């Protein structure tokens, strides 16, 4: 059946006979799709984002422990111990810590020229910060206070107080890795965090086979001459996803009203089509076949359903993934200052949108098809004599 065939045009004309009914049905379908698709997309996006964040990090992180707290890691001995374990590809000392920032506590990281190559994977960094200079992520300063007009000097409070000049603000296009972080010259970071030369905050360990990371933990524990705590990617992933899952579970409750909404739409669709038995009888008397009548009602249902579903899934997608939309990161990661959007996995998201569309379309079309068949196959005489004449 061609789109511009008279049946399609007639179906479009028929929608205009009852415009409020068509508009309400379309709005209800859009709402139900948005309510159903957003939690599913969010859950998928969160897990994908957490995975992406972790993939960009090391396989294992080793920290030196004392009784109940962590201690600076001696770099030379630490690297030597780590690299003595079979399967370890490299051990990189990292200088970072949490300090008092301009608005709240902030993560600072000491960067040397050798770190620039690594950070280039996540940002448009071209050189390391100079002494007294800071490169900051877009989430460090809130848009309200400083988004447009950046304060030139940042006052940071760690072991010591340090005033640095803002040399660069990473744009929102950069990775989440640099979203709410302050990059400092290595010596400034040491000063701020109280780390002597030859010591680091921890060791980032990359292993030859990612799957073997868990297996070499006992060897690593033995290799270090002091107590260490080792964190794996999976541990970190659990921390990320645990809070996300709790909130996603609450959002899944939204599926209950969407199912109720769908039930109402299906009932209304069934009754709406069924109530037109008189018209079906008249059309049959005028030479329409049962097939023509079913086709007409299905064209009408499709004209309402397909644009509504398309609009609904587009809206749901935009609500979760649109670059300017950052509420999921705010809600799930707690990034209050210019939070970034979630990472998109197009194939996974597409699958979810197809599932939701099918889950809404199939019952809606079936709810219209069944009464259309009942009307179309009944005797026209019976239909014409039935109540509800025009």
């Amino acid at each position: 059946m061609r789109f511009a065939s008279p049946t399609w045009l007639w179906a479009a004309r028929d929608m205009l006979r009852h415009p409020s009914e068509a508009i309400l049905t379309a709005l209800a379908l859009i709402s139900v799709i948005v309510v159903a698709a957003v939690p599913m997309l969010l859950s998928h996006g969160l897990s994908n984002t957490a995975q992406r964040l972790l993939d960009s990090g090391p396989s294992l992180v080793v920290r030196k422990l004392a009784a109940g707290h962590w201690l600076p890691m001696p770099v030379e001995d630490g690297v030597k111990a780590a690299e003595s374990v079979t399967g370890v590809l490299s051990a990189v000392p990292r200088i970072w810590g949490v300090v008092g920032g301009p608005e709240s506590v902030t993560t600072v990281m000491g960067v040397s020229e050798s770190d620039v190559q690594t950070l280039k994977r996540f940002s448009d960094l071209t050189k390391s910060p100079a002494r007294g200079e800071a490169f900051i992520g877009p989430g460090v300063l809130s848009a309200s206070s400083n988004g447009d007009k950046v304060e030139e000097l940042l006052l940071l409070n760690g072991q010591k107080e340090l005033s640095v000049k803002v040399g660069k603000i990473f744009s929102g296009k950069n990775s989440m890795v640099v979203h709410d972080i302050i990059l400092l010259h290595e010596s400034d970071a040491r000063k701020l965090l109280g780390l002597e030369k030859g010591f680091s905050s921890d060791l980032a360990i990359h292993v030859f086979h990612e799957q073997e990371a868990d297996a070499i933990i006992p060897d690593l524990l033995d290799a270090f001459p002091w107590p260490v705590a080792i964190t794996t990617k999976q541990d970190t992933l659990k921390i990320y996803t645990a809070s996300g899952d709790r909130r996603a579970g609450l959002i899944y409750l939204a599926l209950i009203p969407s199912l109720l909404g769908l039930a109402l739409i299906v009932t209304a669709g069934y009754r709406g089509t069924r109530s037109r038995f008189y018209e079906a009888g008249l059309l049959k008397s005028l030479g329409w076949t049962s097939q023509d009548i079913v086709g007409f009602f299905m064209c009408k249902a499709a004209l309402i359903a397909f644009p509504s579903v398309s609009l609904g899934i587009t809206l749901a997608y935009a609500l979760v993934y649109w670059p300017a939309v950052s509420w999921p990161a705010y809600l799930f990661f707690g990034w209050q200052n210019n939070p970034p959007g979630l990472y998109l996995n197009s194939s996974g998201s597409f699958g979810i949108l197809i599932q939701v569309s099918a889950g809404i379309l199939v019952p809606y079309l079936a709810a219209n098809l069944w009464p259309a068949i009942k009307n179309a196959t009944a005797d026209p005489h019976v239909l014409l004599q039935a109540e509800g004449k025009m």
Partner: protein
Amino acid sequence: MERVQCVNVSLIISLSGHAEKSIIHRVKAEFNAGQMSLITGVTGAGKSTLLHILAGIIRPTEGEVIVDDQKVSRWMAYHRDRWRKKVGIIFQQPHLLNDLTVFENVCLPLIPQKMPMQTIRKKAFHALDCLGLSHMVGERVTALSGGERQQISIARAIVSGPELILADEPTAHQDMENVTRLMDVFEHHKRKNTVVIVASHDPRIVESRRFNACFNIENGTLEKVQ
């Protein structure tokens, strides 16, 4: 289509309990192409029911409607749908869709006929023009009088160029000028080899002497009178 025959056509309906009522009783008649036939009879005699049986809207309980040697009344629903495509029926009540315009109501039989919208438009205008209704094209049918509504339903019946026209009291609420025009339209279709059957007890039609055959129906029994 050469001829439409009724062979012992009966319609018996069930009433409450086990009672039954015969509406049409063993009707035998033959309606030929290129002829105009009139069925007269008092109200409730069974004229409309007989037309509905001929149109394939009601299935007879006994007997056959035979068209060119095919028993159309025994056809399955799918085939009876096809049969109705060849029929243009004018109901006693106009049965128009009130929220559509005159033009849209007339277009209704053509919509599923897989023809371009331009052709549909042309045919609908032509049908309205034949009955002198061109000026009403865009009007809503709710704004029309009973006679005008009936004229629209006549235009709707002839728009698809049917092989069988069944008209049930087509001249109700019509003035003499419109009756003459309507009879001219039927004559025109008769000349195109259409079977035209008119059920009416309007004396203006009965006395018009334009019919090739006249039948009288009384208590469901049809009798040829001319």
